[in-house]
């Protein structure tokens, strides 16, 4: 090999592909396009086509919300850990932010509106109060991250257990704090705290501010991961913790950074969510979001074994998830949120299975081996039948001219097609061996 060739290879130690994106990231970008085109065709109003600006802004905003805490999840996963507490941390930070607002400006929070010229107008909280509440909440994020690190490095709990404890604990704590603070300040126990302040709500209801926050965080974390010493140490820690320690890397400090970033990004998302929803409701806020964050990171190419992952991949993962969810919501007009969990589940399985399939180890593997494979074919067929039935029901309701579709018949037919197709695949693979 000539010196020139080696020089060129040497300048890119990070194994980046074309335009700085890796091949699987290009595939993900294509998948996003396919989803968008598919949804704009299947949608009876063709919303994406008729109103591209509004649709784009809406998806961008939702992606920013998810992306912010998915970045934190990605950093933790790259460092070889896992943070299950993101959803509860969002609830906790939202509640704490609202609590700070209540404690700092009890009068405004108790009577949030006033009459000016005969019109009911929201009373402003003031910049100082909001700044204090927001910084306090971010500080709490840092403290929770520190708690996680302490539990993991000093107490010696596995990350799964430590963050499972806070997943359960923080939500319950949020509710208790919410009730206690409303009782003592408003003299009326409540399970949520309303927020009407216009500035605060503007933070999240505007499109540009959440996006700006996301972009700033993404760039900062991207530079941290790819261009700094501590970023390299994060990858080293995730790749081989023992070797990292024996190379003189302070592994506990690096973990502290990872889990703090995980909790702080969730705290930022929590603040935005309560602004967006104009209420801090610890029971529903961010419920199950930890899995969306992990899903975005994993779909974006982070390895749960640690040591692999990028900011750009995580961004595309989050964008992909939001596009799929949003696309379904466009096709089914009401109650699409019921399907969110199913979609995230299916998307994660397909995306990760696909990336496994591309590796040499995954290619030779049988898809449906033995009796278990047979039962799996039946299971997938049943699942397809149920999903098709539910979907046809929705489509029959909203798509003109589709009323005559029989949900049960379609479901059974679709299920049969899927089962027969998969059984054929199983048979083909078995005869080939």
């Amino acid at each position: 090999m000539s010196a020139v060739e080696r020089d060129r290879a040497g300048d890119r130690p990070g194994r980046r592909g074309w335009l700085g994106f890796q091949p699987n990231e290009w595939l993900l970008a294509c998948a996003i396009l396919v989803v968008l085109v598919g949804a704009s065709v299947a949608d009876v109003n063709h919303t994406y086509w008729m109103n591209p600006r509004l649709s784009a802004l809406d998806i961008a905003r939702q992606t920013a919300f998810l992306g912010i805490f998915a970045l934190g999840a990605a950093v933790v996963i790259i460092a070889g850990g896992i943070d299950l507490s993101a959803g509860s941390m969002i609830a906790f930070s939202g509640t704490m932010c609202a609590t700070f607002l209540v404690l700092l400006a009890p009068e405004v929070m108790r009577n949030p509106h006033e009459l000016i010229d005969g019109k009911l107008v929201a009373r402003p909280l003031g910049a100082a109060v909001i700044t204090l509440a927001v910084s306090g909440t971010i500080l709490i994020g840092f403290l929770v991250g520190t708690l996680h690190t302490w539990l993991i490095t000093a107490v010696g709990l596995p990350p799964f257990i430590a963050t499972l404890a806070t997943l359960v604990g923080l939500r319950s704590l949020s509710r208790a704090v919410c009730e206690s603070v409303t009782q003592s300040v408003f003299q009326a126990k409540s399970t949520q705290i309303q927020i009407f302040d216009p500035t605060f709500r503007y933070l999240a209801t505007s499109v540009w501010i959440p996006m700006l926050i996301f972009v700033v965080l993404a760039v900062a974390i991207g530079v941290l991961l790819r261009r700094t010493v501590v970023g390299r140490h994060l990858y080293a820690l995730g790749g081989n913790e023992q070797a990292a320690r024996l190379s003189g890397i302070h592994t506990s400090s690096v973990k502290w950074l990872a889990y703090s970033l995980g909790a702080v990004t969730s705290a930022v998302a929590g603040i935005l969510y309560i602004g967006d929803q104009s209420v801090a409701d610890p029971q529903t806020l961010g419920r199950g979001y930890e899995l969306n964050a992990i899903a975005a990171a994993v779909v974006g190419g982070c390895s749960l074994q640690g040591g692999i992952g990028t900011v750009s991949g995580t961004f595309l993962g989050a964008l992909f998830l939001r596009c799929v969810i949003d696309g379904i919501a466009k096709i089914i007009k009401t109650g699409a949120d019921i399907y969110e969990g199913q979609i995230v589940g299916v998307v994660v399985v397909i995306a990760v299975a696909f990336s496994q399939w591309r590796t040499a180890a995954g290619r030779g593997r049988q898809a449906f081996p033995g009796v278990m494979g047979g039962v799996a074919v039946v299971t997938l067929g049943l699942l397809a039948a149920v999903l098709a039935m539910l979907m046809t029901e929705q489509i029959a309701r909203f798509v003109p001219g589709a009323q005559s579709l029989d949900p049960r018949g379609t479901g059974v037919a679709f299920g049969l097609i899927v089962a027969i197709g998969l059984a054929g695949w199983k048979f083909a693979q078995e005869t080939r061996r």
Partner: protein
Amino acid sequence: MHAISIRGVTKRFPGVVALDDVSLDIERGELHSICGENGAGKSTLMKVLSGVLTEFEGQLWVGGRLARFRGTRDAESAGISIIHQELNLVDQLSVAANVFLGREPTRFGMLAERRMEDATRELLAELECGFDARCRAGELRVGDQQLIEIAKAVSLRSDILIMDEPTSALTEAEVERLVRVIERLRGRGVTILYISHKMDEVFRLSDRITVLRDGRWVATKRRSETSPREITHLMVGRDIESASESGRTLGDVVLEVRGLSLPWPGHARGWRLRDIGFQLRRGEILGIAGLMGAGRTELLECLFGAGPEPPRGQILLNDRTVRFRHPSEARRAGIAMVTEDRKRLGLFPRMTVGENITICNLREAARATVLSRRREASMARDTVDRLAVRTPSIGAPITALSGGNQQKCLIGRWLLTKPQVLLLDDPTRGVDVGAKAELYRLMDQLCRERIGILLTSSELPELLTVCDRILVLSEGRMTAEFARGEATEQAIMEAATRGAGPT
């Protein structure tokens, strides 16, 4: 009739021909050694024979019948068992459960524990094992774990046994026991295929020796008609010069250890290390010999601040007392350590060659913590050039390199920190003959650059050729010290097995 006939076997992996038209006959009842450098195709051939790799070109005849294995089960039922270099045991299960794993005897649909244990005990007695069938496999030492695998093969009534570098993790005493077991198996007419780097073992045990190089068959020789020198020559394709120590001069004492002890709470012995004291001079290679468990690795870890707890006693670096609580402190003070288990403790498998080399020294490539790609790349490239690491580029994944080149990268990683003392924990383990010679030359060169080297090795001949002095540890105590020339294998073994006596 041959036990195994290999006819024109070729195995291709993407980008590599691992086996190229290999033909070979193994006679019934013989011990046939397969030699070759890393990457010569030994392990691939064994995987073909044992049904791990099922797709290849060519033919395989076992016991006079054409064999088409679809998996290891097929190979086992044809009477072929393999003992892999990396053992396949479930640490959490008992010895008996491991021996019968996957073919557990049952009674009324329930596990027949008693029957498994009795059968296992019988096997263990036959193999001179000093442990019980009910022990958990994970609690045993490597040498004993290997005997579990052999017991498994014996219980399968295999008449062909493949052993892939069986002694790489064994102490001398365990090797002796293994040799006795092998002799006993051969007495029953078992055919053994033996893969090893170690010439002394190969020449002690084999009837015939086959050499592979770059995936091709090179030669098959009767032991009586060849010599270790010839075999090594055939393996490498060139002669290997031994490391030259002449003309090296010793400098001042750079590292001194006084009364170093490491407690071992909850253990009958009470100490992992007891009252260790020695001096290391600049430009000196000091060897540490000892059986596995004698405390070699623990000693190096204490000096590097990597132990689970701080040791007692004094460590002086350049006459100043030092006390390291973390490897980073040792690194800053000028001590470097290349760890024993490359894969587990050294490499970052997901990173490139360059990233693996610079990981300890990133701050030098960074301004205000932001890395300069250019400076990092030049650091890595200098190291690759200096140590003659054979790699397509510094951007190649580290896992694409051979064991010897990976080891060079790890040594290079630490040389970048400009150490005064280099701790090398069994650096040539799993490294082929050619690369070993290069590592010896490198050590010699580092000594001339005034670095003091502390070296451990599981191979005594290596210590005898490379070291200026050799310390011997036995059960955590220093039992002897030899200067170059005084030391013989026998004297070292005697000191290494000498009981520590009452505390």
